[in-house]
């Protein structure tokens, strides 16, 4: 809160511009695109969990909903603009309804986790079983476990033949991430964001101050879902196919792991955690000495045991210790509080 918003925006823009310019020299833009998309997905959970205190075990549900909505709409519309918008709206509305159900029922902590987990499972099981030709929405066959391939990918609005793919698509996604990041930054500094953090810290007290906690949590939850939905739509365009695996428990688990490793309660942590771990998985996938899953699991266990605050706060603390002025650090309790709701 001490640094002005203006300075933060400028710093973010400069660093992002540098990264967008330099990284493609080291890593292929095809890979970078999906890392950026995962970064956005991680940020969506980081927002609602790290700052809002809402532990959602099924963030992948909104990711999948966004991807599938895009695919189905793209097949039906033949052009990408409206599908992109729908891909953000559908998860948002779904989350608003689900959130209202949960938060007005005053569910907390573990029980919230169970319901979000169950919702993801329901979606996964349902979509997975829609293999027959009778499962259609408009012109789009749902395809069951095979997924939906062959839909119109991102094009310049109004011109279905002017595709945006390859390098330009990477820049599009990267810019999208920066914009979302800045929006989240602005949101957290606004009154809404500060109240959300207050709710994370002590719901009862915020209610006693007169804030409608259930309503605010629902709005925050829906916002996170919208961001995840956008990531899903971008993913659909990148992979050119959507499969039920996007809704899976495994995907939800990964998003949670990204946030923990990156650092809950920070904006950058989940983004870096997502990009970093996804890249690690990509690199590890190319070796077959030790099983991938084993390494991911080991990383999670070790982080929870030894580095529960995640990487970004640890690195930031190190930086401040070496270079910064002496400052009080509110991070530790914030972290624990964020995780335990």
């Amino acid at each position, binding site marked *: 809160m001490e640094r002005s918003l203006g300075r933060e925006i400028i710093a973010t823009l400069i660093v992002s511009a540098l990264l967008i310019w330099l990284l493609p020299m080291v890593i292929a833009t095809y890979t970078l695109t999906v890392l950026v998309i995962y970064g956005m997905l991680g940020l969506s959970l980081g927002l609602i969990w790290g700052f809002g205190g809402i532990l959602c075990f099924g963030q992948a549900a909104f990711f999948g909903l966004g991807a599938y909505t895009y695919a189905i709409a793209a097949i039906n519309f033949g052009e990408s603009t409206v599908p992109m918008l729908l891909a953000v709206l559908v998860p948002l509305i779904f989350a608003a309804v689900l959130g209202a159900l949960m938060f007005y029922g005053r569910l907390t902590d573990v029980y919230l986790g169970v319901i979000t*987990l169950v919702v993801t499972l329901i979606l996964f099981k349902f979509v997975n079983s829609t293999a027959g030709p009778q499962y259609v929405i408009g012109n789009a066959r749902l395809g069951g476990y095979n997924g939906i391939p062959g839909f119109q990918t991102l094009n310049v609005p109004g011109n279905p033949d002017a595709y945006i793919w390859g390098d330009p698509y990477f820049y599009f996604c990267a810019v999208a991430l920066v914009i979302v990041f800045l929006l989240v930054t602005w949101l957290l500094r606004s009154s809404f964001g500060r109240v959300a953090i207050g709710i994370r810290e002590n719901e009862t007290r915020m209610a006693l101050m007169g804030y409608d906690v259930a309503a605010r949590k629902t709005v925050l939850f829906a916002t996170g879902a919208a961001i995840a939905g956008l990531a899903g739509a971008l993913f659909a365009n990148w992979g050119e196919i959507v499969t039920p695996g996007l809704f899976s*428990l495994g995907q939800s688990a990964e998003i*949670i792991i990204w946030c923990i490793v990156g650092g809950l309660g920070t904006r950058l942590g989940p983004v870096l955690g997502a990009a970093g771990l996804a890249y690690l998985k990509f690199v590890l996938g190319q070796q077959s000495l030790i*099983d991938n899953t084993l390494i*991911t699991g080991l990383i999670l266990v070790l982080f929870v045991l030894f580095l529960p605050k995640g990487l970004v706060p640890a690195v930031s603390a190190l930086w401040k210790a070496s270079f910064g002025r002496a400052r009080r650090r509110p991070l530790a309790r914030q972290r624990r509080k964020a995780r*335990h709701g």
Partner: protein
Amino acid sequence: MTTRSTKSKSNRVFLPGGVPLAPRHPFYSFKQVSMDLSFVIAVEVLYAVASLVLISAGLAVVFGMMKVINLAHGEFMMLGGYTTITAVGLGVNVFIAMLVIAPLVVGLIGLIVERLVIRHLYGRLVDTMLATWGLSLVFIGLATMIFGNTTTGISTPIPGFAVGDYQISGYNFFIIVVAAVLVIAMLAVLRGTRAGLIARGTMQRADMAAALGYSPDRIYMATFFCGSALSGLAGAVLAPLVGLVPTSGGAYIAKAFITVIAGGPSLIAGLLSSATSFGVVNQVFTFAISPVIGEVALLVAAVVLLRLMPQGITGRFFKGKL
């Protein structure tokens, strides 16, 4: 699980729903068939409840007693299955492998996990969930490296038998019996033995138990051992029914998790009430529409139940019972 026995279908008359009518006195044969059908349905429902009880027992013990959510529970079951298969492959009798060896081995693995990881995270509910989730991935990775990705399995060691026109798998009865024995044993140990009483006391107030001279550390170890052993037993017993792959645990953990949380704070009463509720819902919808809808119905029932009773079933009813 249940199949129609193949008889001559030449002059079969069928009731709605495909139930064949035997060509005898209409009244008598109708009663006979619906009696058979009712019996079969009853067995199927009991089986659904029993398998939910089995799947969830290990997790319930660990959560109900220690407030630890062990997300590696599904993998413990998977390890129980692989232990059984390995033991049988080495010539051990299948029932001994399932009922003795698998629980012991998985119990030991659980003990190691408790000492190395869980012990440091008591009281931190979310952190234990995350750490055990990580462990589950580790076990999946290890199992893949050791056993490979292909499906292995053993056939059900008890043959089926016929009831009227229907065929019931004898193994289903075995599972129902195992589940029933399990619940009775748990009740007996917790209610009737000194060890059970000490365990229950520690779970309520660890500091008081310590003040009375009991080591909470030891009790947590023992409880986690028992919980893991139960998971291993469940996995072993359920292994002959499906092909086993390293990722088999994933199918179980969600159901177990939901059943335990929806059950609420009471260990056995909660387990039985939620397993019964979900088992019945699952089977009703499976019979009425399809197995997939049955699964979805179970999940929807869970959402509804938790919305109405946020503390679980035994948070509202049967309060105070074990």
